[in-house]
Protein backbone atom coordinates (compact mmCIF):
# COMPACT_ATOMS: atom_id res chain seq x y z
CA UNK A 1 0.00 0.00 0.00
CA UNK A 2 1.40 3.37 -1.02
CA UNK A 3 -0.29 6.59 0.09
CA UNK A 4 0.49 10.06 -1.20
CA UNK A 5 -0.56 12.89 1.14
CA UNK A 6 -0.71 16.41 -0.27
CA UNK A 7 0.62 19.07 2.10
CA UNK A 8 0.20 22.80 1.71
CA UNK A 9 1.76 25.67 3.64
CA UNK A 10 -0.71 28.31 4.86
CA UNK A 11 -0.54 31.35 7.15
CA UNK A 12 -1.34 30.62 10.78
CA UNK A 13 -5.03 31.01 11.62
CA UNK A 14 -4.26 34.08 13.75
CA UNK A 15 -2.12 35.76 11.05
CA UNK A 16 -3.04 39.30 10.11
CA UNK A 17 -4.16 39.28 6.49
CA UNK A 18 -2.79 42.31 4.63
CA UNK A 19 -1.42 43.01 1.17
CA UNK A 20 1.48 44.93 -0.37
CA UNK A 21 2.56 46.12 -3.82
CA UNK A 22 -0.67 47.95 -4.52
CA UNK A 23 -2.77 45.09 -3.13
CA UNK A 24 -1.31 42.47 -5.45
CA UNK A 25 0.80 40.47 -2.97
CA UNK A 26 0.08 38.87 0.39
CA UNK A 27 2.15 40.63 3.08
CA UNK A 28 4.30 37.76 4.34
CA UNK A 29 6.34 39.84 6.76
CA UNK A 30 6.06 38.46 10.28
CA UNK A 31 3.56 35.78 9.27
CA UNK A 32 3.83 32.39 10.99
CA UNK A 33 3.31 29.47 8.64
CA UNK A 34 1.57 26.23 9.44
CA UNK A 35 0.58 23.03 7.68
CA UNK A 36 -2.86 23.61 6.20
CA UNK A 37 -5.07 22.27 9.02
CA UNK A 38 -7.17 20.02 6.76
CA UNK A 39 -4.01 18.43 5.35
CA UNK A 40 -2.50 17.93 8.79
CA UNK A 41 -5.39 17.01 11.06
CA UNK A 42 -7.35 14.83 8.68
CA UNK A 43 -5.41 13.72 5.57
CA UNK A 44 -2.04 13.09 7.19
CA UNK A 45 -3.29 11.69 10.50
CA UNK A 46 -5.71 9.31 8.74
CA UNK A 47 -2.84 8.07 6.53
CA UNK A 48 -0.72 7.51 9.66
CA UNK A 49 -3.56 5.56 11.27
CA UNK A 50 -3.81 3.33 8.17
CA UNK A 51 -0.08 2.66 8.46
CA UNK A 52 -0.44 1.83 12.14
CA UNK A 53 -3.03 -0.77 11.17
CA UNK A 54 -0.98 -2.13 8.27
CA UNK A 55 2.73 -1.46 8.94
CA UNK A 56 3.64 -2.42 5.38
CA UNK A 57 2.05 0.86 4.24
CA UNK A 58 4.36 3.50 2.79
CA UNK A 59 3.43 7.18 3.15
CA UNK A 60 4.91 9.86 0.94
CA UNK A 61 4.18 13.53 1.40
CA UNK A 62 4.16 15.95 -1.51
CA UNK A 63 4.16 19.71 -1.57
CA UNK A 64 4.41 22.20 -4.40
CA UNK A 65 6.42 25.11 -3.09
CA UNK A 66 9.73 26.89 -2.94
CA UNK A 67 12.53 26.14 -0.46
CA UNK A 68 10.76 28.10 2.28
CA UNK A 69 8.11 25.33 2.53
CA UNK A 70 10.70 22.86 3.86
CA UNK A 71 10.16 23.65 7.58
CA UNK A 72 6.48 22.84 7.06
CA UNK A 73 7.17 19.56 5.32
CA UNK A 74 9.65 18.59 8.08
CA UNK A 75 6.95 19.37 10.61
CA UNK A 76 4.59 17.07 8.72
CA UNK A 77 7.28 14.36 8.64
CA UNK A 78 7.55 14.70 12.43
CA UNK A 79 3.93 13.58 12.69
CA UNK A 80 4.54 10.65 10.36
CA UNK A 81 5.24 9.62 6.80
CA UNK A 82 8.31 7.94 5.34
CA UNK A 83 9.61 10.52 2.93
CA UNK A 84 8.65 13.76 1.24
CA UNK A 85 8.81 15.23 -2.22
CA UNK A 86 8.92 18.95 -2.87
CA UNK A 87 8.14 20.18 -6.36
CA UNK A 88 10.30 23.25 -6.63
CA UNK A 89 7.82 25.87 -7.83
CA UNK A 90 5.44 28.37 -6.34
CA UNK A 91 1.88 27.18 -6.73
CA UNK A 92 0.56 29.44 -9.47
CA UNK A 93 -3.02 28.16 -9.36
CA UNK A 94 -4.97 25.02 -8.43
CA UNK A 95 -4.54 23.52 -11.89
CA UNK A 96 -0.78 24.06 -11.89
CA UNK A 97 -0.49 22.45 -8.45
CA UNK A 98 -2.77 19.54 -9.35
CA UNK A 99 -0.79 18.93 -12.55
CA UNK A 100 2.49 18.72 -10.61
CA UNK A 101 1.03 16.33 -8.05
CA UNK A 102 -0.55 14.21 -10.78
CA UNK A 103 2.89 13.88 -12.37
CA UNK A 104 4.44 12.75 -9.06
CA UNK A 105 1.56 10.31 -8.61
CA UNK A 106 2.05 8.83 -12.09
CA UNK A 107 5.71 8.13 -11.35
CA UNK A 108 5.14 6.84 -7.82
CA UNK A 109 2.28 4.43 -8.50
CA UNK A 110 0.22 5.28 -5.42
CA UNK A 111 -2.88 3.38 -4.34
CA UNK A 112 -4.37 6.28 -2.48
CA UNK A 113 -4.04 10.06 -2.72
CA UNK A 114 -5.24 12.18 0.19
CA UNK A 115 -5.76 15.93 0.10
CA UNK A 116 -7.30 18.26 2.66
CA UNK A 117 -10.80 19.51 1.86
CA UNK A 118 -9.43 22.95 0.99
CA UNK A 119 -6.61 25.27 2.00
CA UNK A 120 -7.45 27.98 4.50
CA UNK A 121 -5.79 30.63 2.31
CA UNK A 122 -7.30 30.17 -1.16
CA UNK A 123 -10.38 28.15 -0.13
CA UNK A 124 -10.87 26.65 -3.59
CA UNK A 125 -11.32 22.97 -2.64
CA UNK A 126 -10.14 22.25 -6.18
CA UNK A 127 -6.82 20.38 -6.14
CA UNK A 128 -8.19 16.93 -5.20
CA UNK A 129 -10.82 16.85 -7.94
CA UNK A 130 -8.35 18.10 -10.51
CA UNK A 131 -5.76 15.43 -9.60
CA UNK A 132 -8.47 12.77 -9.90
CA UNK A 133 -9.51 14.00 -13.34
CA UNK A 134 -5.92 14.26 -14.59
CA UNK A 135 -5.28 10.67 -13.49
CA UNK A 136 -8.77 9.44 -14.47
CA UNK A 137 -9.33 8.12 -10.96
CA UNK A 138 -12.51 8.05 -8.88
CA UNK A 139 -12.82 10.94 -6.43
CA UNK A 140 -14.41 10.84 -3.00
CA UNK A 141 -14.85 14.49 -2.11
CA UNK A 142 -15.39 15.90 1.38
CA UNK A 143 -14.92 12.59 3.16
CA UNK A 144 -15.72 12.51 6.88
CA UNK A 145 -14.87 8.83 7.32
CA UNK A 146 -12.55 6.44 5.49
CA UNK A 147 -11.89 2.75 6.01
CA UNK A 148 -9.91 0.22 4.07
CA UNK A 149 -10.32 -3.56 3.94
CA UNK A 150 -7.83 -5.08 1.49
CA UNK A 151 -8.30 -2.88 -1.54
CA UNK A 152 -11.95 -2.09 -0.83
CA UNK A 153 -12.69 1.37 0.44
CA UNK A 154 -15.73 2.26 2.52
CA UNK A 155 -16.12 5.97 3.08
CA UNK A 156 -18.67 8.55 4.11
CA UNK A 157 -18.83 11.76 2.14
CA UNK A 158 -20.79 14.91 2.79
CA UNK A 159 -23.45 15.75 0.18
CA UNK A 160 -26.11 18.44 0.08
CA UNK A 161 -28.40 17.89 3.04
CA UNK A 162 -26.66 14.85 4.45
CA UNK A 163 -24.13 12.09 3.90
CA UNK A 164 -23.55 9.22 1.51
CA UNK A 165 -21.84 5.97 2.40
CA UNK A 166 -19.86 4.79 -0.59
CA UNK A 167 -17.74 1.86 -1.68
CA UNK A 168 -14.95 1.84 -4.20
CA UNK A 169 -11.74 0.07 -5.10
CA UNK A 170 -8.23 1.45 -5.02
CA UNK A 171 -6.67 3.45 -6.55
CA UNK A 172 -8.51 6.68 -5.86
CA UNK A 173 -8.34 10.27 -4.64
CA UNK A 174 -9.97 11.46 -1.40
CA UNK A 175 -10.42 14.96 0.01
CA UNK A 176 -10.48 14.84 3.79
CA UNK A 177 -12.30 16.89 6.40
CA UNK A 178 -13.41 16.81 9.99
CA UNK A 179 -14.41 13.38 11.22
CA UNK A 180 -11.65 11.50 9.36
CA UNK A 181 -9.20 11.65 12.27
CA UNK A 182 -8.23 13.66 15.33
CA UNK A 183 -5.45 16.21 15.48
CA UNK A 184 -2.15 14.88 16.89
CA UNK A 185 0.87 16.54 18.47
CA UNK A 186 4.27 15.33 17.20
CA UNK A 187 6.39 13.59 19.85
CA UNK A 188 10.13 13.98 20.44
CA UNK A 189 10.96 10.76 18.59
CA UNK A 190 8.98 11.97 15.58
CA UNK A 191 10.68 15.35 15.60
CA UNK A 192 14.16 13.74 15.80
CA UNK A 193 13.50 11.21 13.05
CA UNK A 194 11.97 13.83 10.74
CA UNK A 195 15.38 15.48 10.39
CA UNK A 196 16.83 12.51 8.61
CA UNK A 197 13.85 11.35 6.57
CA UNK A 198 14.46 11.77 2.81
CA UNK A 199 13.16 15.03 1.31
CA UNK A 200 13.50 14.87 -2.44
CA UNK A 201 13.35 18.05 -4.51
CA UNK A 202 12.14 17.73 -8.10
CA UNK A 203 11.71 20.36 -10.79
CA UNK A 204 8.17 21.11 -12.02
CA UNK A 205 6.80 19.91 -15.34
CA UNK A 206 5.86 22.67 -17.78
CA UNK A 207 2.20 23.56 -17.27
CA UNK A 208 0.46 26.87 -17.89
CA UNK A 209 -1.78 28.00 -15.05
CA UNK A 210 -5.37 28.65 -16.15
CA UNK A 211 -5.89 31.62 -13.85
CA UNK A 212 -3.84 34.46 -12.34
CA UNK A 213 -4.39 36.71 -9.36
CA UNK A 214 -5.07 40.29 -10.38
CA UNK A 215 -5.35 41.72 -6.87
CA UNK A 216 -6.71 41.53 -3.36
CA UNK A 217 -9.08 43.49 -1.18
CA UNK A 218 -9.83 43.43 2.54
CA UNK A 219 -13.46 43.78 3.61
CA UNK A 220 -14.53 47.23 4.83
CA UNK A 221 -14.56 47.54 8.64
CA UNK A 222 -17.90 47.41 10.44
CA UNK A 223 -19.60 50.76 10.90
CA UNK A 224 -19.75 50.37 14.68
CA UNK A 225 -21.83 48.47 17.16
CA UNK A 226 -25.17 49.43 18.68
CA UNK A 227 -25.49 48.19 22.27
CA UNK A 228 -28.85 47.19 23.66
CA UNK A 229 -29.41 47.22 27.45
CA UNK A 230 -29.65 43.75 29.00
CA UNK A 231 -32.93 44.60 30.71
CA UNK A 232 -34.68 45.13 27.39
CA UNK A 233 -33.74 42.33 24.95
CA UNK A 234 -36.94 42.91 22.95
CA UNK A 235 -35.30 46.10 21.69
CA UNK A 236 -32.84 43.96 19.70
CA UNK A 237 -35.71 42.21 17.95
CA UNK A 238 -37.36 45.58 17.24
CA UNK A 239 -34.13 46.91 15.69
CA UNK A 240 -33.58 43.77 13.62
CA UNK A 241 -37.15 44.11 12.38
CA UNK A 242 -37.50 47.87 11.83
CA UNK A 243 -33.93 49.05 11.23
CA UNK A 244 -32.06 46.10 9.71
CA UNK A 245 -35.29 44.71 8.19
CA UNK A 246 -34.05 41.14 8.55
CA UNK A 247 -36.86 39.60 10.57
Amino acid at each position, binding site marked *: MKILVCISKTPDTTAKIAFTDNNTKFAENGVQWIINPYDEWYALVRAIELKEKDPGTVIHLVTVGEADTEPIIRKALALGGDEAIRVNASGADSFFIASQIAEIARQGGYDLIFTGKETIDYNSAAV*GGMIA*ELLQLPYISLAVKFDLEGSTV*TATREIEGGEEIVQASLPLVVSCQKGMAEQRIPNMKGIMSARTKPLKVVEPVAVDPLT*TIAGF*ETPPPKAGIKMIPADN*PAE*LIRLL*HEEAKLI
Partner: protein
Amino acid sequence: MSVLIFIDHSDGAVKKASLEAISYGAKIAEQLGLTAEGALLGNLNEDIASLGKYGVKKIYHVADVALDHPDPQVFTEVIAQIAEKSGAKLIVFSNNLHGKAIAPRVSARLKAGLVAGAVALPDTSNGFIVKKNVFSGKAFAFISINTDIKIISLNPNAYPVAVTEGAAAEVVPFTAAVGEPRIKVTAVNKVTGEIPLGEAEIVVSGGRGLKGPENWNILEDLAAALGAATACSRPVADADWRPHHEHVGQTGLAIAPNLYIAIGISGAIQHLAGVNRSKVIAVINKDPEAPFFKAADYGIVGDAFEIVPKLTEAVKALKG
Protein backbone atom coordinates in the same frame (compact mmCIF):
# COMPACT_ATOMS: atom_id res chain seq x y z
CA MET B 1 -22.62 30.14 -27.68
CA SER B 2 -23.81 29.88 -24.15
CA VAL B 3 -23.39 30.34 -20.47
CA LEU B 4 -24.08 26.81 -19.28
CA ILE B 5 -25.48 26.53 -15.77
CA PHE B 6 -25.19 23.28 -13.87
CA ILE B 7 -28.62 22.85 -12.26
CA ASP B 8 -27.90 21.09 -8.99
CA HIS B 9 -30.72 19.44 -7.09
CA SER B 10 -31.27 17.24 -4.08
CA ASP B 11 -34.33 15.36 -2.87
CA GLY B 12 -35.99 16.05 -6.23
CA ALA B 13 -35.89 19.82 -5.86
CA VAL B 14 -33.66 22.66 -7.08
CA LYS B 15 -32.56 24.30 -3.85
CA LYS B 16 -31.85 27.96 -3.18
CA ALA B 17 -28.08 27.86 -3.82
CA SER B 18 -28.71 26.35 -7.22
CA LEU B 19 -31.43 28.93 -8.06
CA GLU B 20 -28.88 31.62 -7.16
CA ALA B 21 -26.43 30.05 -9.62
CA ILE B 22 -29.12 30.04 -12.34
CA SER B 23 -29.96 33.71 -11.72
CA TYR B 24 -26.26 34.58 -11.70
CA GLY B 25 -25.51 32.67 -14.90
CA ALA B 26 -28.53 34.21 -16.65
CA LYS B 27 -27.34 37.70 -15.69
CA ILE B 28 -23.84 37.07 -17.09
CA ALA B 29 -25.35 35.64 -20.28
CA GLU B 30 -27.33 38.86 -20.67
CA GLN B 31 -24.19 40.97 -20.05
CA LEU B 32 -22.14 39.05 -22.60
CA GLY B 33 -24.87 38.56 -25.21
CA LEU B 34 -24.80 34.76 -24.81
CA THR B 35 -27.72 32.39 -24.21
CA ALA B 36 -28.34 31.04 -20.74
CA GLU B 37 -28.61 27.27 -20.95
CA GLY B 38 -28.86 24.66 -18.23
CA ALA B 39 -27.55 21.14 -17.66
CA LEU B 40 -29.84 19.00 -15.54
CA LEU B 41 -28.63 15.50 -14.67
CA GLY B 42 -31.09 13.20 -12.95
CA ASN B 43 -34.72 13.83 -12.16
CA LEU B 44 -36.82 16.40 -10.35
CA ASN B 45 -40.15 16.14 -8.58
CA GLU B 46 -41.06 19.50 -10.04
CA ASP B 47 -41.64 20.95 -13.49
CA ILE B 48 -38.33 21.49 -15.28
CA ALA B 49 -39.54 23.99 -17.89
CA SER B 50 -40.73 26.40 -15.19
CA LEU B 51 -37.08 27.00 -14.20
CA GLY B 52 -37.25 29.40 -17.15
CA LYS B 53 -38.52 32.02 -14.75
CA TYR B 54 -34.98 32.30 -13.33
CA GLY B 55 -33.72 33.29 -16.77
CA VAL B 56 -32.50 30.00 -18.25
CA LYS B 57 -33.72 29.58 -21.85
CA LYS B 58 -32.92 25.99 -22.68
CA ILE B 59 -32.24 23.01 -20.42
CA TYR B 60 -30.41 19.89 -21.52
CA HIS B 61 -31.91 17.13 -19.45
CA VAL B 62 -30.31 13.73 -18.97
CA ALA B 63 -32.99 11.64 -17.31
CA ASP B 64 -30.81 8.61 -16.52
CA VAL B 65 -31.66 7.59 -12.94
CA ALA B 66 -28.02 6.58 -12.40
CA LEU B 67 -27.47 10.33 -12.22
CA ASP B 68 -29.54 10.80 -9.10
CA HIS B 69 -26.25 10.47 -7.15
CA PRO B 70 -23.78 13.16 -8.14
CA ASP B 71 -20.70 11.05 -8.92
CA PRO B 72 -17.98 13.56 -9.87
CA GLN B 73 -16.38 11.38 -12.53
CA VAL B 74 -19.61 10.47 -14.32
CA PHE B 75 -21.00 13.99 -14.02
CA THR B 76 -17.82 15.46 -15.48
CA GLU B 77 -18.16 13.22 -18.52
CA VAL B 78 -21.80 14.21 -19.08
CA ILE B 79 -21.25 17.93 -18.44
CA ALA B 80 -18.33 17.94 -20.88
CA GLN B 81 -20.60 16.47 -23.56
CA ILE B 82 -23.35 19.00 -22.87
CA ALA B 83 -20.84 21.87 -22.79
CA GLU B 84 -19.69 20.92 -26.24
CA LYS B 85 -23.21 20.62 -27.62
CA SER B 86 -24.24 23.91 -26.05
CA GLY B 87 -21.11 25.78 -27.15
CA ALA B 88 -20.40 26.82 -23.57
CA LYS B 89 -18.07 29.76 -23.07
CA LEU B 90 -18.73 29.85 -19.35
CA ILE B 91 -19.96 27.11 -17.04
CA VAL B 92 -21.55 28.15 -13.75
CA PHE B 93 -21.85 25.93 -10.68
CA SER B 94 -23.05 26.62 -7.18
CA ASN B 95 -20.07 26.33 -4.83
CA ASN B 96 -22.15 24.05 -2.63
CA LEU B 97 -20.98 20.57 -1.65
CA HIS B 98 -21.89 19.12 -5.05
CA GLY B 99 -20.24 21.98 -6.92
CA LYS B 100 -17.06 21.47 -4.89
CA ALA B 101 -17.05 17.81 -5.86
CA ILE B 102 -17.67 18.30 -9.58
CA ALA B 103 -16.47 21.71 -10.84
CA PRO B 104 -12.71 21.08 -10.31
CA ARG B 105 -12.90 17.88 -12.35
CA VAL B 106 -14.71 19.67 -15.18
CA SER B 107 -12.05 22.38 -15.03
CA ALA B 108 -9.21 19.87 -15.42
CA ARG B 109 -11.12 17.99 -18.09
CA LEU B 110 -11.77 21.03 -20.31
CA LYS B 111 -8.60 22.91 -19.28
CA ALA B 112 -11.02 25.68 -18.38
CA GLY B 113 -9.89 28.07 -15.64
CA LEU B 114 -11.95 27.80 -12.46
CA VAL B 115 -12.80 30.40 -9.84
CA ALA B 116 -14.32 28.57 -6.88
CA GLY B 117 -16.14 30.70 -4.34
CA ALA B 118 -17.15 33.72 -6.46
CA VAL B 119 -19.01 36.45 -4.56
CA ALA B 120 -19.91 38.89 -7.37
CA LEU B 121 -20.57 39.16 -11.09
CA PRO B 122 -17.40 39.01 -13.21
CA ASP B 123 -15.80 42.20 -14.43
CA THR B 124 -15.52 41.81 -18.19
CA SER B 125 -14.43 45.35 -19.01
CA ASN B 126 -10.82 44.29 -19.41
CA GLY B 127 -10.38 40.53 -19.56
CA PHE B 128 -12.47 38.34 -17.29
CA ILE B 129 -11.98 38.96 -13.59
CA VAL B 130 -13.94 37.30 -10.80
CA LYS B 131 -14.02 38.37 -7.16
CA LYS B 132 -13.73 35.47 -4.75
CA ASN B 133 -13.52 34.81 -1.07
CA VAL B 134 -9.97 34.00 0.20
CA PHE B 135 -8.20 33.61 3.53
CA SER B 136 -11.38 32.05 4.94
CA GLY B 137 -13.43 35.21 4.84
CA LYS B 138 -10.65 37.60 5.84
CA ALA B 139 -10.11 38.96 2.30
CA PHE B 140 -11.18 38.84 -1.33
CA ALA B 141 -9.08 38.10 -4.40
CA PHE B 142 -9.68 39.18 -7.97
CA ILE B 143 -8.89 36.25 -10.22
CA SER B 144 -8.34 36.58 -13.92
CA ILE B 145 -9.43 33.54 -15.95
CA ASN B 146 -7.15 33.22 -18.94
CA THR B 147 -8.71 30.35 -20.88
CA ASP B 148 -11.25 30.36 -23.68
CA ILE B 149 -13.80 28.37 -21.68
CA LYS B 150 -14.28 29.59 -18.11
CA ILE B 151 -15.81 28.10 -14.98
CA ILE B 152 -17.24 29.93 -11.96
CA SER B 153 -18.57 28.34 -8.77
CA LEU B 154 -20.78 30.85 -7.00
CA ASN B 155 -20.76 30.94 -3.20
CA PRO B 156 -24.18 30.34 -1.60
CA ASN B 157 -25.87 33.56 -0.36
CA ALA B 158 -23.64 35.77 -2.52
CA TYR B 159 -26.11 36.57 -5.32
CA PRO B 160 -29.89 36.93 -5.00
CA VAL B 161 -32.37 34.63 -6.69
CA ALA B 162 -34.03 36.75 -9.39
CA VAL B 163 -37.38 35.82 -10.88
CA THR B 164 -37.74 37.24 -14.38
CA GLU B 165 -40.67 37.59 -16.74
CA GLY B 166 -39.01 34.85 -18.79
CA ALA B 167 -41.09 32.19 -20.49
CA ALA B 168 -40.82 28.48 -19.75
CA ALA B 169 -37.45 27.01 -20.66
CA GLU B 170 -37.18 24.68 -23.62
CA VAL B 171 -36.35 21.23 -22.24
CA VAL B 172 -34.11 19.23 -24.55
CA PRO B 173 -33.72 15.53 -23.69
CA PHE B 174 -30.04 14.68 -23.91
CA THR B 175 -28.60 11.22 -24.17
CA ALA B 176 -25.10 10.91 -22.87
CA ALA B 177 -22.89 7.89 -22.91
CA VAL B 178 -22.93 7.45 -19.13
CA GLY B 179 -20.29 5.08 -17.76
CA GLU B 180 -20.85 2.98 -14.66
CA PRO B 181 -19.86 5.01 -11.59
CA ARG B 182 -16.73 3.51 -10.02
CA ILE B 183 -17.96 4.71 -6.64
CA LYS B 184 -20.97 2.77 -5.42
CA VAL B 185 -23.40 4.52 -3.09
CA THR B 186 -24.56 2.00 -0.50
CA ALA B 187 -26.57 4.28 1.79
CA VAL B 188 -27.77 7.87 2.01
CA ASN B 189 -28.42 9.60 5.33
CA LYS B 190 -30.30 12.83 4.90
CA VAL B 191 -30.78 15.31 7.68
CA THR B 192 -34.48 16.01 7.44
CA GLY B 193 -36.47 18.94 8.67
CA GLU B 194 -33.48 21.22 9.17
CA ILE B 195 -32.66 24.34 7.22
CA PRO B 196 -29.29 23.67 5.52
CA LEU B 197 -26.74 25.85 7.29
CA GLY B 198 -24.95 26.98 4.11
CA GLU B 199 -28.16 28.37 2.63
CA ALA B 200 -29.83 29.78 5.72
CA GLU B 201 -30.68 33.48 5.80
CA ILE B 202 -30.66 33.60 9.59
CA VAL B 203 -28.30 31.55 11.75
CA VAL B 204 -28.44 31.23 15.53
CA SER B 205 -25.12 29.99 16.86
CA GLY B 206 -23.95 28.90 20.29
CA GLY B 207 -20.58 28.59 21.98
CA ARG B 208 -19.09 27.23 25.16
CA GLY B 209 -20.95 29.91 27.10
CA LEU B 210 -24.06 27.71 26.90
CA LYS B 211 -22.30 25.31 29.31
CA GLY B 212 -23.63 22.01 27.93
CA PRO B 213 -25.75 20.30 25.26
CA GLU B 214 -28.74 20.12 27.62
CA ASN B 215 -29.06 23.91 27.37
CA TRP B 216 -29.39 24.06 23.61
CA ASN B 217 -33.18 24.12 23.80
CA ILE B 218 -33.18 27.88 24.47
CA LEU B 219 -31.17 28.39 21.29
CA GLU B 220 -33.31 25.98 19.28
CA ASP B 221 -36.49 27.75 20.42
CA LEU B 222 -35.11 31.06 19.18
CA ALA B 223 -34.04 29.48 15.89
CA ALA B 224 -37.47 27.91 15.41
CA ALA B 225 -39.23 31.22 16.07
CA LEU B 226 -36.97 32.95 13.53
CA GLY B 227 -36.99 30.15 10.94
CA ALA B 228 -33.22 30.02 11.38
CA ALA B 229 -30.58 27.32 11.11
CA THR B 230 -28.41 26.49 14.12
CA ALA B 231 -24.61 26.53 14.24
CA CYS B 232 -21.88 26.30 16.87
CA SER B 233 -18.24 27.08 17.66
CA ARG B 234 -15.52 24.50 17.23
CA PRO B 235 -15.06 23.44 20.86
CA VAL B 236 -18.80 22.79 21.03
CA ALA B 237 -18.62 20.39 18.07
CA ASP B 238 -15.36 18.87 19.35
CA ALA B 239 -17.06 18.07 22.66
CA ASP B 240 -19.93 16.45 20.73
CA TRP B 241 -22.45 18.85 22.22
CA ARG B 242 -23.57 19.46 18.65
CA PRO B 243 -23.06 17.60 15.34
CA HIS B 244 -19.90 18.36 13.37
CA HIS B 245 -21.77 19.80 10.40
CA GLU B 246 -22.84 22.74 12.62
CA HIS B 247 -19.22 23.80 13.27
CA VAL B 248 -18.56 27.16 11.65
CA GLY B 249 -15.28 29.02 11.37
CA GLN B 250 -11.94 28.83 9.69
CA THR B 251 -11.77 25.06 10.02
CA GLY B 252 -15.49 24.43 9.71
CA LEU B 253 -18.12 25.77 7.38
CA ALA B 254 -17.78 29.37 6.19
CA ILE B 255 -21.21 30.98 6.00
CA ALA B 256 -22.65 34.30 4.87
CA PRO B 257 -26.22 34.61 6.15
CA ASN B 258 -28.11 37.91 6.32
CA LEU B 259 -28.19 37.68 10.10
CA TYR B 260 -25.84 35.79 12.45
CA ILE B 261 -26.76 35.71 16.13
CA ALA B 262 -23.83 34.59 18.29
CA ILE B 263 -24.68 33.43 21.81
CA GLY B 264 -21.97 32.68 24.36
CA ILE B 265 -19.22 32.71 21.72
CA SER B 266 -16.06 34.70 22.49
CA GLY B 267 -15.33 35.64 18.87
CA ALA B 268 -11.87 34.13 18.41
CA ILE B 269 -10.23 35.09 15.12
CA GLN B 270 -10.70 31.54 13.77
CA HIS B 271 -14.41 31.68 14.55
CA LEU B 272 -14.85 35.13 13.00
CA ALA B 273 -13.16 33.98 9.80
CA GLY B 274 -16.08 31.69 9.03
CA VAL B 275 -18.87 34.12 9.84
CA ASN B 276 -17.67 37.64 9.17
CA ARG B 277 -19.27 37.76 5.74
CA SER B 278 -22.67 37.73 7.44
CA LYS B 279 -24.49 40.94 6.55
CA VAL B 280 -25.50 41.71 10.14
CA ILE B 281 -24.05 40.19 13.32
CA ALA B 282 -25.73 40.34 16.74
CA VAL B 283 -23.77 39.19 19.79
CA ILE B 284 -25.00 38.12 23.22
CA ASN B 285 -22.18 37.62 25.71
CA LYS B 286 -21.84 38.23 29.43
CA ASP B 287 -18.28 39.54 29.05
CA PRO B 288 -18.22 43.15 27.77
CA GLU B 289 -14.60 42.57 26.66
CA ALA B 290 -15.47 39.60 24.41
CA PRO B 291 -13.71 40.19 21.06
CA PHE B 292 -16.90 39.38 19.16
CA PHE B 293 -18.35 42.81 20.04
CA LYS B 294 -15.69 44.43 17.83
CA ALA B 295 -16.99 42.53 14.81
CA ALA B 296 -20.70 42.98 15.51
CA ASP B 297 -23.50 45.35 14.52
CA TYR B 298 -25.69 44.82 17.59
CA GLY B 299 -24.72 43.63 21.04
CA ILE B 300 -26.18 42.79 24.43
CA VAL B 301 -23.92 42.30 27.44
CA GLY B 302 -25.72 39.82 29.65
CA ASP B 303 -26.46 36.26 30.63
CA ALA B 304 -27.64 34.16 27.69
CA PHE B 305 -29.88 32.08 29.92
CA GLU B 306 -31.91 35.17 30.81
CA ILE B 307 -31.75 37.00 27.52
CA VAL B 308 -32.34 34.33 24.88
CA PRO B 309 -35.80 33.22 26.11
CA LYS B 310 -36.85 36.89 26.11
CA LEU B 311 -35.67 37.26 22.53
CA THR B 312 -37.75 34.24 21.58
CA GLU B 313 -40.80 35.79 23.26
CA ALA B 314 -40.23 39.05 21.40
CA VAL B 315 -39.96 37.25 18.05
CA LYS B 316 -43.15 35.32 18.73
CA ALA B 317 -44.94 38.52 19.71
CA LEU B 318 -43.72 40.20 16.53
CA LYS B 319 -44.75 37.36 14.26
CA GLY B 320 -48.07 36.99 16.07
